[in-house]
């Protein structure tokens, strides 16, 4: 009796989760399916979960006009990698002194950093500073410098450094090691898990950045992938301009126009697909980051 009850409960929970997880998987499949559909079939009878008149025309158009996609990949790749590396280095550098109990301005400096989480100048003053005074508007540097430091990540790093045994630092100092050496040869190698967590969060944020382009960038060559996708989704003319070259093997006479609608989705797959397959493998670090974040230093 009891056993049967448990089983029926288990079945209903599994049924719920199978349906629930479909809500998360199907939308992605929908985008893939539209990109693989025939343009005319889509315009005539709408999007569907299974490709309509399966064809690769949209992809052929995307690959025949790769210039913009290439630019955006370069911009996003460079800013994400360089930005994450620099950002992690600078944040770890300050997190180390803040983790030291004997650092004489530890308290004041922690507040100096923490205060930026409570109050900020806001969009307008930041925009005016960056474009009018620092001259970083419409340049690649706007992706890197303004987002180098984040109070929250520094606090996470500091909390981890604090949990390392103090004796390590002390014995190294007795042996005559400088602080730089202690930081690079003792602290950094011991902190790989937290460094990986912060690096992955930063990398993900930079990879998914469209906001910086939206606010600061005018030149098409400097668009990030995500902003490129936004332009593509919103602006039919932009897609049209992007599909200037007709791919080989397509008979122009048979088609009045480039397959704009399915091309949007093919672009989406090409721009967002690769990393979306990579990030879930690091799920462990992301979920760890959440629980690390829940611990106050």
């Amino acid at each position: 009796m009891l056993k049967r009850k448990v089983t029926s409960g288990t079945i209903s929970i599994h049924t719920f989760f199978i349906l629930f997880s479909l809500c998360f998987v199907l939308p992605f499949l929908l985008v893939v399916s539209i990109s693989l559909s025939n343009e005319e079939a889509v315009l005539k009878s709408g999007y569907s979960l299974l490709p309509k008149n399966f064809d690769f025309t949209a992809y052929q158009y995307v690959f025949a006009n790769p210039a913009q996609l290439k630019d955006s990949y370069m911009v996003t790749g460079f800013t994400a990698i360089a930005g994450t590396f620099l950002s992690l280095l600078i944040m770890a550098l300050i997190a180390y002194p803040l983790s030291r109990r004997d650092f004489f301005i530890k308290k004041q400096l922690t507040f100096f950093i923490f205060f930026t989480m409570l109050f900020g100048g806001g969009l307008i003053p930041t925009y005016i500073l960056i474009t009018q005074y620092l001259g970083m508007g419409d340049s690649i540097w706007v992706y890197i410098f303004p987002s180098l430091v984040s109070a929250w990540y520094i606090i996470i790093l500091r909390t981890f450094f604090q949990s390392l045994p103090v004796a390590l630092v002390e014995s190294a100092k007795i042996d005559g090691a400088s602080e730089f050496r202690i930081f690079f040869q003792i602290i950094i190698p011991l902190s790989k898990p937290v460094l990986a967590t912060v690096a992955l969060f930063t990398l993900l944020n930079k990879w998914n950045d469209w906001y910086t382009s939206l606010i600061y960038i005018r030149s098409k060559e400097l668009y990030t992938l995500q902003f490129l996708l936004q332009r593509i989704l919103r602006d039919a003319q932009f897609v049209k301009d992007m599909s200037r070259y007709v791919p080989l093997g397509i008979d122009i006479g048979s088609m009045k126009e480039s397959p704009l609608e399915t091309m949007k989705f093919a672009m989406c797959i090409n721009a967002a697909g690769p990393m979306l397959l990579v990030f879930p493998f690091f799920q462990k670090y992301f979920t760890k980051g959440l629980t690390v974040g829940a611990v106050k230093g």
Partner: protein
Amino acid sequence: MQYAETKSKENHFITTGKHSLLYKIKSNMELLILCIPAVICFVIFNYLPMVGVLIAFKDYRYDLGVLGSKWVGFENFKFFFTSQDAIRITQNTLGYGFLFIIVSLLSSVIVALLLFEVKNKTAIKYYQTTMILPFFISWVIVGFISYSLLNPSTGVINQMLKMLGLSPVQWYSDPKYWPYILTIANVWKGVGMNSIVYYAALMGIDSELFEAATLDGANKFQQVMNISVPTLIPLMTMLSILALGNIFRGDFGLFYQIPRDIGVLYPTTDVIDTYLFRGLRTGDNIGVTAAVGFFQSFVGLFTVVAANAIVKRINSENTLY
């Protein structure tokens, strides 16, 4: 960590006694140098813009600069607060803020409780991974998905309505549907990641408690209500109050990418952050826009500090500072 703390108190390496400031600086020189790059970044990109809030009290002109523009006192604030926009965007920001806190709390706790009942390891892994997928994508991609669902002529939802014999809905031209659409989008993107914190807390419960309850004849539902839920309540309270502290800072991506910045939908989709963005984009009245930004930052500061004070009174372990 406890061990490290007592240890450091016992043999303090560098004495922090009554030394002159100069001596302290000298003996901490290397550590100070490590701080320099980050401090410079904070000063330029976080503290300088704080000086820029002066713009809110000026008639800002790009050619005259921040310091050169004319002072106008509280004119910008008066202009905003007497406008139609003030009520709309404040109402929307706060309304969605409260709605999202409640809905995301309930959804993530329920998902965590249900997931906790799943015993098959592979199944747990699969469910969690699929639910977390939206965490890895930007709002732009969510925009693609919502567009393919809601597109009035080719969208999936209207096709389904037609199949059921109902008339299709013009989603992008009627504001009344948007509170639901935005709430669903918000839950869809966040529930996987949010439920993990609660799931982790449930994993921490001593399994003997459940065994004892089973022996005493408690059924599954009673166990959930009397063991699992009470375990989560402190965490639920803390996270909700902290979220209340951030209620004035909306998620720009959600409100900008999903309704596609369509004017007809503003009555139910315009929040402070989208208003600020439009103010910047049109550039008509930077002073007023800056005043709205200042209003947001200032109220935000107040609510975060208040939220933390409340949490501190309940349980000092869960505060931000």
